[in-house]
């Protein structure tokens, strides 16, 4: 069998398999209970506990934030670590060797991205403060309203990318360098880990520990959830920024 024929057979087999697979899954969905009924089996005592007891036990009005940063805080620590490890692996894969001079790096950067475009600069001068402010707002209100560390961090990261594209690397490097990335991310992850380990060690109910639930509804309430949200936002924004900069030019400036 020559190459074209083999290719054709492979394509036909793949298509048949996909159609069979979709049909099977559709039949499965057909037998699921209709969406949105309050008596569906997935609205069980777990969800009920998170909504009914969560706000009083954690102090967070947002039940999702209370769930992921209080009851399942170590799961969220794992997620933040996954992001950090992804950033580090991309750094290992894409970094330019140590001998490359600064000129090469600038040349590589110039090849892919235009810098100093007047329209971009003017628009982003207006946009960047608003975007950063919105990201900070979402992070700090994670326990009161929709949002939290992950969404706020993604918006902050997008704001950094806008800043980078508007003003170029030299100005961004002043506050976002490789050392800054390492220090800030590691500090956020370690603070998260130590603070949460301490609360779990003290019985995980906030009785004997420094975390106080406070008055639900205030910004400074819900114990550790606000600091943990800030840590997660720092990790997420730094990861997004570093992923972008490494795929764009293979590492931070020397």
């Amino acid at each position, binding site marked *: 069998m020559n190459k074209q024929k083999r290719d054709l057979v492979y394509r036909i087999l793949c298509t048949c398999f996909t159609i069979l697979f*979709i049909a099977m899954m559709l039949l499965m969905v057909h037998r699921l209970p209709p969406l949105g009924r309050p008596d569906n089996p*997935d609205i069980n005592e777990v969800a009920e506990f*998170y909504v009914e007891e969560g706000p009083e036990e954690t102090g967070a009005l947002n*039940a999702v934030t209370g769930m*992921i940063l209080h009851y399942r805080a170590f799961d969220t620590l794992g997620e933040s670590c996954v992001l950090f490890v992804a950033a580090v692996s991309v750094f290992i894969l894409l970094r330019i060797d140590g001998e490359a001079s600064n000129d090469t790096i600038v040349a590589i950067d110039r090849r892919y991205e235009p810098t100093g475009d007047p329209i971009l600069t003017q628009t982003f001068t207006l946009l960047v403060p608003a975007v950063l402010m919105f990201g900070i707002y979402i992070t700090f209100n994670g326990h009161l309203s929709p949002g939290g560390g992950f969404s706020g961090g993604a918006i902050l990261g997008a704001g950094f990318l806008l800043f980078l594209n508007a003003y170029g690397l030299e100005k961004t490097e002043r506050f976002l360098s490789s050392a800054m990335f390492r220090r800030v991310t590691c500090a956020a992850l370690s603070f998260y880990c130590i603070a949460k380990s301490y609360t779990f060690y003290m019985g995980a109910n906030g009785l004997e520990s420094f975390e106080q639930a406070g008055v639900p509804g205030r910004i400074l309430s819900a114990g550790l959830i606000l600091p943990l949200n800030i840590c997660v936002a720092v990790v997420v924004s730094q990861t997004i920024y570093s992923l972008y900069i490494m795929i764009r030019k293979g590492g931070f400036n020397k």
Partner: protein
Amino acid sequence: MNAFLANLPEYAAMVLFGIGLANLMLAKNLIKKIIGLNIMDTSVFLFLAAKGYVENTLAPIVSAEDLGAIDMANYSNPVPAGLVLTGIVVSVSITAVLLSLTVRLYEEFHTLDMDEIIHMLRRRDREELK
């Protein structure tokens, strides 16, 4: 027909998953394969997010006045939202690592075609054996 309309997001998620799977298997371009993987991820998120919906309820964000007498019947399910969050993080990380691997492969072989890359690798092995 009513049952079909009620479960529409779930049907859509399954079809999207199939499209992504077909894209992953059939596309030769590595970037297109990664796009297929992302479509599969998105379909799973759609399925989970649809599962959290309950008719005539609010998002699971309690108003401060309700504290003390919270009734689950007024709020939708918060558990799938947490699961989707985990999924999104993993999906972003995998996409970043795959894209950087693709950049490296392109620098090495100057093509994104999977078959050509395998072909070149085999030829290189044969030459090394000689």
